[in-house]
């Protein structure tokens, strides 16, 4: 019964929610919105447990004096400040907003900026022309990169002016993006969509039970 109950609920709600996608009636749309709301209600309860595990993890780090344990103290200070100001005064409080805009946002932006360097190092590895496929990738990437910058078309129109095609660099780039790139992406999307449907059927029928915490 421990498993049958959730499986039966999953089956009923799965079928009902599929039905709501084909039924515009207000009753079915209300049902859909209601179920989504229930999902939102569960999150705060789970969040409490998540915060407890976060505190436990960092207490353990401090207690065991693991490497860089001092950073765990920073977690506690940050958490305490946000909770002590945020809970009584709300998220619109000027101090909470200031902390968010001047601490979290710049740190997020810093991490995001690192992406540029990571892309450069990953591209360097991927584009080393050791095999035929890697060479093809390198040539394609060069065309797309040259087509992306205005100087690409300028160079094309100046150096390759004898070719009867104006702005060839950006046109070649656009062709690569619109034809081979889009075709392969759509192939992946089609496969993913079928995979999602298949996985959903397995979940609704109770074949796939990992979301219940495993076991039979």
């Amino acid at each position: 019964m421990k498993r049958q109950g959730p499986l039966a609920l999953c089956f009923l709600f799965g079928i009902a929610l599929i039905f709501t996608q084909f039924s515009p009636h207000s009753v079915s749309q209300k049902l859909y919105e209601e179920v989504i709301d229930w999902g939102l209600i569960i999150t705060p309860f789970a969040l409490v447990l998540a915060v407890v595990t976060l505190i436990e993890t960092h207490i353990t780090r401090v207690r065991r004096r693991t490497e860089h344990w001092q950073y765990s103290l920073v977690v506690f200070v940050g958490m305490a400040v946000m909770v002590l100001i945020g809970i009584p005064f709300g998220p619109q409080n000027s101090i909470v907003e200031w902390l968010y805009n001047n601490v979290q946002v710049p740190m997020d932006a810093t991490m995001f900026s690192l992406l540029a360097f990571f892309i450069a190092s990953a591209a360097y590895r991927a584009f080393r022309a050791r095999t035929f496929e890697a060479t093809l990738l390198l040539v394609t990437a060069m065309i797309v990169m040259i087509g992306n910058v205005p100087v690409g078309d300028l160079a094309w129109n100046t150096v390759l002016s004898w070719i009867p095609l104006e702005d060839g660099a950006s046109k070649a780039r656009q062709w690569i993006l619109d034809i081979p790139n889009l075709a392969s992406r759509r192939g992946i999307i089609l496969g993913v969509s079928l995979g999602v449907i298949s996985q959903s059927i397995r979940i609704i029928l109770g074949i796939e039970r990992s979301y219940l915490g495993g076991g039979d």
Partner: protein
Amino acid sequence: MKKIIKCLMVYLVLCMSISIAFSQGLSPPSNVTAVDTPNDDGRSVTIQWDAAPEDSGISGYQILRRIAGGGLEEIGEMLPAGTTSYVDATIEKGNAYAYIVRAVSDTGATVDSEETAPVKGTGEWFHTGKIPLFVAMLLFSAAILWNIYDARSGKEVFVRRIPGLEAVDEAIGRATEMGRSILYVLGLGGVDNVATIASMTILGQIARRTADYETPLRVPCNDPIVLNVIREMVRTSYLDEGRPDAYNEENIFFLTDSQFAYAAGVDGMMVREKPAAVFLQGQFYAESLLMAETGNSIGAIQIAGTDSEHQLPFFIAACDYTLIGEELYAATAYLSKDPMFLGSLRGQDWGKVVIFAAIVLGVILELSGVGWITSFLQRVR
């Protein structure tokens, strides 16, 4: 004589004025109908009328509405001259509404159409425009179910070799031999995300193996519900393998729900703990390369898998193996060899064959100048 000329001139001016006034006169909008909008929840009415000639002098239309027994009220903004329909989505269910379309000229002159018959909004239980989609869904589901049934009867199902999944044992073995941990990252998806559920299932299979080898399995989470589900799931995997003592709940923990803070936390773990194997399975966004490149820099064997097609190139460039799109969903069947999962995989392939055949047929027909299959597919919403 002068009086006669004056009278004639006044007469001519009057005649000309009257003729100009008649030529500028507005005709009322014709054939105005109001019907309940099909395939909606019953909260809208569609009003339609014939297009006016270009020289009609109409500069716009105003829709007026009357609730049965009440007065007329203007609804919505002034509509441009070429408009021939309007959807009134502000009606209340149960009330009957009658409509008038008022034509407005540049000079502000107006003329009203005849009032339509009162109409009530009714919600439909089934969206008739989605019948082809519904039929396709039924057929595809039937194909999967039939294949699951067929696979259960003992028929062998062939699954092509997937290098990324073949390497799972190699990665776990490597971590075990090196005495280091395995880091499993589920991405940013919640428990309602199908890719996350697929990733959780793969985690369950990996946990069975790490339970046997007593290899530490570290799982930082960014979603509280996912955290609770996978704690229970990994614990069950260890129990099933008869190694409940090897399960350490502290290894599955909540990091943060902020995207880049999560990436920073995972990167920090990689650099400090130097796991021998890193699994990046689930739904990823811009943080994918931040984690994959860090994993690459510490020399970990990395197996990635995602259905986010924009992140696939990053994983392919930075990881040793990548499960591309649907391979993520095939992983459970591949690792568990469960006939029911394998059967559903074959059902998926049937779907792909049908789609591929439709594409080939569509291309041939389009090249032959026959466009019905394209227009049919364009109508499906």
